[in-house]
């Protein structure tokens, strides 16, 4: 074990100081592909005693292609806690509890992830327990219907925040055909209808909860060979499926779109300005260039931030950028504006700031500051096994490999001021823009 500890430490230290090539994810991980399509990553770290297990299924709200089924991937995440014949929920809870585990799950556009962080003694029993629910999930219609209500409760608790509605409206307005049109929570009407979808839920399980969609990440105080043997034993017999969702392609947007949300409760106005941008890529420079632009244009050292937040103090939130997605999505800048009368001017400032990148080449020094920021930000977030597993899970959702992180960060290093100009000219166009505003009741 001591050798591994030293290796992991060296990896972390070298991350920022070694000569080329500088790998951002430099942990000594192993990847193992099983014949059934299941993929295992083991990452020993020097954080003692703790193991973080993430099971990532490459299914999310992006796969919800059928009408009336929005929100189902997330709903199914809840259903996965309803047990099996061998391990009903209480037994599942008891096994997790015996390992001192903290457990949860989350769903996004492109992934559903189930995670547990626990004391290393629990690893064998938890890998067996999880293998059972991924292969043999079984629940009654009655429990299924009850769980649908908990999802409705989740919608309710989210609904007090105006940004939830702002995002809902943005997707609805910006997309016509692609499933990114709906949020991961789903349309409210579909959430209300969830209790009646029992038969469909079985089909959903059969389609997506299959080894070829699934990656297991085990990070922490582990012996990789032991982990591999355990996964082989409990997950090796899982049968491959044969379903692929046909995700509709989004047609090119022809003109600027606008929408307004009338919020019932007093709030400062919100503004979201979005542009259609390409899917995540770690092989061409566009994703990397857009990430750098968001930081240069609206980060805390940008001229726009300096003027709008610090000097004129007209907004108290100014942030955003491109979110990494499997299919083409949005580059969105959010702002909370302190006075309703300034909303139009702030929208103009955001648009003209991005337009500025089409003509003006950014100084190399500023570009370097952002590149450094991205590397140190990543390094500083890798401060425990769970955080490492979490970062890895998000990479696995995109490319099923941590190498995508290394490729992306290598691209950041290569980006030139000209690359920024090119990507700005290509994507910050009026016909690709969607603007959504949200404001509270007019003052009496």
């Amino acid at each position, binding site marked *: 074990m001591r050798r591994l500890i030293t290796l992991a430490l060296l990896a972390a230290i070298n991350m920022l100081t070694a000569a080329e090539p500088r790998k951002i994810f430099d942990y000594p991980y192993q990847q193992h592909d099983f014949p059934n399509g299941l993929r295992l990553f083991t990452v020993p770290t020097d954080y003692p005693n703790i193991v973080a297990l993430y099971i990532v299924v490459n299914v999310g709200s992006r796969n919800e292609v059928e009408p009336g089924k929005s929100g189902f991937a997330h709903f199914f995440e809840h259903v996965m806690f309803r047990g099996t014949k061998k391990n009903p929920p209480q037994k599942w809870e008891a096994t997790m509890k015996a390992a*001192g585990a*903290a457990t949860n799950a989350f769903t996004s556009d492109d992934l559903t992830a189930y995670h547990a962080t*626990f004391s290393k003694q629990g690893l064998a029993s938890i890998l067996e327990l999880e293998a059972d629910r991924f292969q043999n999930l079984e629940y009654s219609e009655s429990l299924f219907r009850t769980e649908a*209500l*908990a999802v409705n409760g989740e919608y309710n608790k989210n609904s007090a*925040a105006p940004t939830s509605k702002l995002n809902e409206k943005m997707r609805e307005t910006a997309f016509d055909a692609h499933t990114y049109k709906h949020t991961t929570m789903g349309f409210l009407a579909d959430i209300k209808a969830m209790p009646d979808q029992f038969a469909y839920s079985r089909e959903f399980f059969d389609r997506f909860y299959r080894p070829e969609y699934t990656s297991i990440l085990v990070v922490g105080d582990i012996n990789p060979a032991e982990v591999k043997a355990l996964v082989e034993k409990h997950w090796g017999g899982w049968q491959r499926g044969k379903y692929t969702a046909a995700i509709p392609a989004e047609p090119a947007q022809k003109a600027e779109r606008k929408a307004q949300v009338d919020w019932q*409760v007093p709030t400062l106005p919100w503004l979201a300005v979005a542009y259609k941008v390409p899917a995540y890529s770690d092989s061409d420079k566009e994703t990397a260039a857009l990430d750098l632009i968001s930081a240069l244009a609206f980060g805390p050292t940008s001229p726009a931030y300096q003027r709008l937040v610090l000097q004129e103090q007209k907004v108290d939130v100014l942030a955003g950028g491109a979110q990494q997605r499997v299919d083409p999505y949005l580059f969105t800048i959010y702002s909370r504006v302190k006075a309703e009368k300034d909303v139009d001017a702030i929208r103009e400032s955001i648009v003209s700031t991005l337009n500025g990148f089409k003509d003006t080449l950014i100084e190399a020094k500023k570009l370097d*500051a952002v590149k450094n920021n991205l590397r140190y930000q990543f390094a500083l977030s890798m*401060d425990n096994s769970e955080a490492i597993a979490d970062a890895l899970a998000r990479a696995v959702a995109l490319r099923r490999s941590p190498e995508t992180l290394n490729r992306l960060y290598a691209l950041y290093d290569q980006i030139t001021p000209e690359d920024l100009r090119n990507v700005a000219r290509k994507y910050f166009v009026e016909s690709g823009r969607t603007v959504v505003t949200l404001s509270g009741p007019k003052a009496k």
Partner: protein
Amino acid sequence: MKKLALFSFLISATLPAIEVVAMPGQSPLIQFRFVFRAGAANDPKGKEGTAALTVGLITGGGTKSMTYQQVLDAMYPMASDLERQVDKEMIVFSGSTHIDNLDAYYALVRDALLTPGWREDDLKRVRDNLKNAVRLSLRENNDEELGKELLYSLLYKGHPYGHLSLGNLSSIDALTMADLQAFYQTHLNQANLTIGIAGKYPAGFVERMTKDFAALPKGKPSTVKLPELAPLKTTQVTIVQKKTRAVAYSIGYPIDVTRSHPDFPALLVANTWFGPHRSSGGNLYQRMREIRGLNYGDYSYIEYFPRGMFQFEPDPNLYRRGQIFQIWIRPVEPPTAHFALRLALFELERLIDKGLTESDFEATRDFLALNVNLLMKTKSAELGYAIDSKAYGIPEYTSYLQSALKKLTHEDVQKAIRKHLRKDRLQIVAISDNAEDLKKQFLADAPSPMKYNASKPGDILEEDKLVSTKKLGWKPEQITVVPVESVFQ
């Protein structure tokens, strides 16, 4: 065992008056915690929010030699910043940096804390941010956190804990630069300060920090006298009228138990069985959400746990000499609001009457002994817990809890429940779009039967009969409706 060995490396340097908790290690990520034993409890009367605004200006403003923009420009390439937390009796400045940038980062933090810039334009922005945090982030856009904070304010009325740590909208408006400077001079002193540091920092670094921070006034401890709280004579219900989809509840009362109290481990076991934070394993969660689908989750607490909707582990350095027992019912659909409250109270009564079974006690005790390691999963948290343990006067938290759990008996837990928890004289806060109607339902005390969208086992239906007809017995003077606009005004 590893934890114990590690703790023995701690150096409690007492070169000048400043306490240091140092955890030297091999990580290139250097963690800092500057913790002052002062906070919102030291806000002068009528000047609520002074601690929060002072600290906000220190982290969100420039220094004597640099404008805030220059500070941001310097911090940005290192991806570091200086974070803050202001609670009743602790103020924390925390941050981390890669060892590559240690000197530059430390210089920025040192200057921020020792030579703040006190600029009016920074104050204007930071004041706006603070008011927006109260008005928007809390009062108008977050029903659940609103309910919890209001519960504290009601329980501690007239007490140094009795106002929102962020301050009230009107008091924040009235604060002047001189108020903030006076707070800084009086409370951010050496007597109140503990510096925490972890990572592969160089030899002599701790001495350098203690020498630098000796520039702060020596000062006196800021500990204020906490008066006895007037006990609640009856249950009090406060319903906040607010446009919202669902009904959120917070329920609680002060308890005598903090980490300093010998019954803390016993009560922690009881609470961890009843309503562990954001865990599906708790009894309350099982009865309310899993079996009945009433909402997204239901939890209970014996220590202050702000921002619970955004995080799974509590933040350290929220040391308090007084804590409350609290139940958090996440928003329920309005037609089930009456039933949900009855069920929460029914489960609380069952906890007090029956306690835990022997096997539940054992499973929860064993869970906690392992789970405590997860609280320390980052070095920053480990530093924070070490500083809290000093404040509470207990050994390092992991070993303290693990050794206490070893000695704990089932009877200890049952006794602690009976001694410290109760089923009556509660403060209840509800957030509802139909406050008057909810009040009418409570006063009518009529049955509130549950209708399900699926069949339920017979024992649940039987239990529902008891729950839905459970008499609350409240009188009109026990229920107050308040408009949301008046809260934290």
